[in-house]
Structure formats: structure tokens, C-alpha cells
């Protein structure tokens, strides 16, 4: 059996304009040896879930700038559960107020990374927490 590769979907839902942040994190993940599935801008939660399933990713990394994190991220978690694919690690990144973080974790998001976090932090988090 060859070394198991960690597969990560970097998703950028919502309507806000650019995906610079998502691309930076995608490159950092690749450089950490991960296989990164990148789907571009404006993905709906339904699309994110469909892609996560087909690609059988270990990690769904959701990057968000707009304020919709409160509903969007939990929706992804719930849809994955519905489809019987809830063994994935789901993490989020973006401008997310501290006050909102406990509720997101309660909803099943494993960790939230706010702007300014070095990319090594989510990388180490993934390596430590990914499904075996």
C-alpha cells in the first residue's frame, strides 16, 4: 500500500468577488503535500457537498469573506450528514467574529482560522485531526 495522500477541497462559497485568499491556502496545502481540489468562486453548499463526495476528500476547507458563515458552514455539515458522508474534517477560514466561533464549532466545524493565522497552523491541524 502506498502512502495515503490527504485530499482537501478548498471551497469558496458566497458571492463576494475575489479568491486570492483561497488560492494562497490552496498553494500552501499543495506545498504541504496535500492533493487540493479547487473549484473556483461562488459555490453553493449543495455544490460543495457534491464535490466533497465525488472527490472523497478528507477535509473540506471553506473560505469565506462575506457574513454568511453563520448559515453556510452549518449547511455544508448538515448536507454531508444527510448524504452519509460525515466522516470529513470541516474547517473554516475568513473574517469571522470571535463571538460566532463557538456556535460554528457546536454545528460541527472542527476549527476556524481567522486572518493573519500562518498557513502552517491549519496544515498542522489537518495532519493531527484527519481521519485515519
Amino acid at each position, binding site marked *: 500500500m502506498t502512502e495515503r495522500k490527504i485530499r482537501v477541497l478548498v471551497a469558496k462559497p458566497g458571492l463576494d468577488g475575489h479568491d486570492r485568499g483561497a488560492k494562497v491556502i490552496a498553494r500552501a496545502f499543495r506545498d*504541504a*503535500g496535500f492533493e487540493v481540489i479547487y*473549484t473556483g468562486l461562488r459555490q453553493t453548499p449543495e455544490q460543495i457537498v457534491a464535490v466533497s463526495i*465525488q472527490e472523497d476528500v478528507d477535509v473540506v476547507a471553506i473560505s469565506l469573506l462575506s457574513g454568511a458563515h453563520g448559515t453556510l458552514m452549518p449547511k455544508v455539515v448538515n448536507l454531508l450528514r444527510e448524504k452519509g458522508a460525515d466522516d470529513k474534517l470541516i474547517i473554516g477560514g475568513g473574517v469571522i467574529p470571535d463571538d460566532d466561533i463557538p456556535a460554528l464549532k457546536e454545528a460541527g466545524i472542527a476549527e476556524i482560522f481567522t486572518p493573519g493565522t500562518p498557513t502552517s497552523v491549519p496544515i498542522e491541524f489537518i495532519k493531527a485531526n484527519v481521519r485515519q
Partner: protein
Amino acid sequence: MDLVQLVKEGNRVAIARLITRAENEDPEAIVALRQLYSETGKAFLIGITGPPGSGKSTLTDKVVKELRKRGKTVGVIAVDPSSPFTGGAILGDRIRMSDLALDDGVFIRSMSTRGSLGGLSKATYNTIQILDAAGFEYILIETVGVGQSEVDIIKTADTTVVVSVPGLGDDIQAIKAGIMEIGDVFVVNKADREGAERVVIELAQMLELNANMGDWFPPILKTVAVRNEGIVDVVDKIIEHQAYLTSSGELCIRRKERISNELINNILNKVSAKITDKLSEENFWDSQLDEIIENKRNPYDVIDRIINGILQ
């Protein structure tokens, strides 16, 4: 319920999981593939290759949509290169196929070459088997296309579509040499750009020179994939080629060749792994060398002895 049964029923979570196991060379995947084998051989395989950025993914998206309009189900395997330094990869072909994510008649899987050089990954063949067994009628394989490395696709696909674009300059000369023999359908994409007609003429001239052509003369089609122009013709020609392969018996020949290649590769891999094991046994190799140097044994006997030991 077990994975094999779920894959046969087209369960997407199960299909995806089995592909992952095949990619990781998990022995359980081989057990499942053995059981699935009798369900395979029904899908028609279309390879799409061409230089980086020529529009392969965009074209794949549009071809899939046209096949869907015709009532067909489609699996897609999109291969991108892995980084030689970290082994990681960014798999971005899906960016051009966003609309297909929610179509239940389509299953798309992105793959990294994981170091393989021929434009496909080692697991591509097994992934085809899985999608085939799951009942997808057409399977499109988008390969990494860089010069020589398209060769794998001809060994794998039933119909190979070669994409070129205007404005490649001298590159096209280098690419042409390798691709003229492998294309069943030629597409000149980005025909909205200047120079498309010239590429068509050049390709036509190269094709005429190609002596060992059978009864199928590869068509050359212009497309503007981003605007969905010329796609119906591409799909028509693919279906025509499929009919040709079937009626001429060529399909059987190609598939036999594909199985032959796949078997040889696998046998060589297994044997070479055994040899590596044997040679890394403690002191074994070193003692053989010493005996040869001291003229106690000749190298020819040593070779025979090792080979016979492994093959029995």
C-alpha cells in the same frame, strides 16, 4: 451493505471511497475490483488530450452536457500533474465543470499523476473499471498533455480527441510529431482567435502524410468551447468513431491491446518488487558480488539462479 454491491447500484459515496482505496493501492480495493470485473466492459472511453491551457476542461464540460442531452450518463476522470518536490497537487479542472456537480448522471473525479510520467496516474485504469461497473455509459479522461506524454491515453481510451489551439508557435511542431498517430478526432479550440484556419490546414497536411491510416480518416473540427460552438459536431464525430470501431472490429483489438499493456505493467511491477525484496535481503547481494569477484562463481550462473528463485 458491502462496498461492491453499493458501487453496482451507483451509490456515489461508495464509488468515491473505492476509487480512493484504488489510488492508495489498498489491498481491499483489489478484492472489490475482482468482484466488479464481470460488470465492466460496457462503458465507452473517450480520451481528451492536448497542451496545457488549450481548453480541455472547458471542452470536456461541454461534451458532457451534450452527451447528457442525448440521454447518456457520463463519468469524468481529470488528471493533473503532481508537484515533483512535495508530491502535492492542485487539481483545478473542476473549475470549468461547476454546473455538472449537481447532475446525478455525471460523476467527476480529479486525480493527480502521483509521479507517473505518461499523462495518467497508475490508478486511472482501476478508476475506469469502477466507473464502468457503476454503470456510466461514457467515461471521459482528461489527461495532462505535454508533448510526448500523451502516449498513455491512446493505450487507454477507445476514442482519443486531440485538442490544439492557434498561437502555439513552434511548440506545435514538437507536439504534432507525437500526436498525429494518436488522434481519432482533432479539435482546434479557441477558433475565435486568429490563426485557427492555419492550424486546421497544417493538421490536415500532417494527416495526409500519415501513411498507416486505416478506414477512419480523423476529422478536424473547429470549436469555441467557452461559447459552446462546434460541440455538437465533436460529439457527432465521437459517436461516429464509436460506431466505426464497433463495426470494424477495431474496438476489440484496441481493448485487447489495453488489457495487454495493463497486465504487462502490473506483472513487471510485481516482479520488480519481488526482485527488490530479494536483493535487499541482508548480505545476499554483497555475498554474490564477492563470489563473482573472487571467481568462485560466474555472473551468468548468478543471474539465472536469482531469476529462477524468484519465478518459481
